[in-house]
């Protein structure tokens, strides 16, 4: 039984058929990569899963609950967090306030405190800057904050939208190391990336999205050795 199952999803923006019959699944403990060019529909799929966009048809089952029938703000408490594209940290709030927003749906103060310690341990820079407005952080630090904020809800699965966007190669490596270690500590990851090479390197399986439909899928290592994938997405 898959943890997250997307079945025959169709999403429209007005007249534009953005997502066409997309189906895929994520099993507990996996890192799944959704790769594809700009405009292929990767972000649309994530937004539909988290309820920011309503699909025309199709189902999204998370631990057997149909997310298409649940309002966006109730998805977090089911155990699903998202690191949105472009980080979208609350720039006028402090780093600490941002992290606390991540735990908005949780009640137990001591458990929140423990998660905060865990996040600080993973991202020591966030602790150093906890009283600084998030808008004053660098791009890499904001990415870490967005990830830390998502972890604060103590999710079973974390959806990451283009975590490498706009970061230097060194920071990209650092971010991908963190994603891998978050996964190793028990959180399932659905990763959307334009940087297909990096994504395939850490993913277990991957789905390749082309103009709204899934063009191919399979084991990440095998896809990496697939000639057509190498040509189209790995720039070789």
């Amino acid at each position, binding site marked *: 039984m898959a943890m997250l199952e997307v079945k025959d999803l169709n999403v429209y923006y007005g007249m534009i058929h953005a997502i066409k019959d997309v189906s895929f699944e994520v099993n507990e403990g996996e890192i799944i990569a959704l790769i594809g060019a700009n405009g292929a529909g990767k972000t649309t799929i994530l937004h539909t899963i988290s309820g920011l966009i309503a699909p025309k048809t199709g189902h999204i089952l998370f631990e057997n609950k149909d997310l298409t029938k649940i309002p966006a703000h109730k998805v977090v408490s089911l155990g699903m967090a998202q690191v*949105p594209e472009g980080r*979208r940290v609350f720039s006028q709030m402090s780093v600490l306030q941002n992290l606390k927003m991540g735990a908005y749906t949780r009640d137990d103060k001591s458990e929140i405190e423990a998660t905060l310690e865990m996040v600080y341990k993973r991202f020591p820079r966030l602790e150093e800057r906890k009283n600084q407005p998030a808008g004053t952080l660098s791009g890499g630090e904001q990415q870490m904050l967005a990830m830390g904020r998502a972890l604060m809800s103590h999710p079973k699965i974390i959806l990451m939208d283009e975590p490498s966007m706009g970061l230097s190669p060194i920071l990209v490596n650092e971010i991908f190391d963190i994603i891998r270690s978050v996964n190793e500590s028990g959180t399932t990851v659905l990763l959307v990336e334009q940087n297909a090479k990096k994504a395939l390197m850490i993913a277990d399986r991957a789905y390749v999205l082309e103009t709204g439909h899934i063009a191919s899928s399979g084991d990440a290592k095998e896809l990496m050795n697939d000639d057509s994938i190498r040509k189209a997405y790995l720039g070789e």
Partner: protein
Amino acid sequence: MTFLNYLISGISLGSVYAIIALGYTMVYGIAKMLNFAHGDVIMVGAYTVFVAMSSSGLPALPAILLSMVVCTVLGVVIERVAYRPLRGAGSPLAVLITAIGVSYLLQNLALLIFGSNTKSFSTVVPLSPLKLADGRITISGETIVTILASIVIVVGLSLFINRTRPGQAMLAVSEDQGAAKLMGINVNGTIALTFAIGSSLAAIAGVLLCSAYPSLTPYTGSMPGIKAFVAAVFGGIGSIPGAMIGGILLGIIEIFGKAYISSQMADAIVFAVLIVVLLVKPTGILGKPIREKV
């Protein structure tokens, strides 16, 4: 000494503007809309107190509490019925025009129920005036209560926003509604709460305004509403301390304009000052510059 008297009445009038401006600025900051019916909620608040005290014989404090409840419910209902269905649907102008419509609706309903005759509002403040400097400076009980009320409200609101969970949710919604939803924040609920707070403040403003200027008509809220909107823009719309500073400065400018220049020109002077401020600093006194995406 007359200067000091004018200054005090300016601060007093400005405090009322500030309390109204808080409602404008919070709704703008969080729901990104201008609620032009806000001024008329003040009028409803004042009529509620008037009816409760003169017809039902309620004492002042329960009457004010009743009025706050009535305005809170009214504000939430207006948001739910008139604004929420239009949110996110096409042009933000649709909500703006609806707000103007709601404003006229409230005025005409009041006209229908209470008639166009001016009601004389009896003050809710039992304090006698405070005389200072051998009676050369007089501070009325209304003035003292108004200024104290505005300080308590601004401090209370700041604490609420910075220290409580719903307050933090408001901040998050004001920055990014989508990201706020991803945190599990009920955006519609947060906006409704903002309307509730703004409208209950409008009730307080209505009572204070009519205690100081005791003539009540269905149009009583209209001009103070517009001036409070000016005050909110003047101080930097979206900013709570900005609304306070903008309101008080506006009150002082208005009273000084009336006293020293011309009582007929006072409103024109108020708006002229707004234009000058916006030419020099388009985001208002405490307004944050619009951030550019990198």
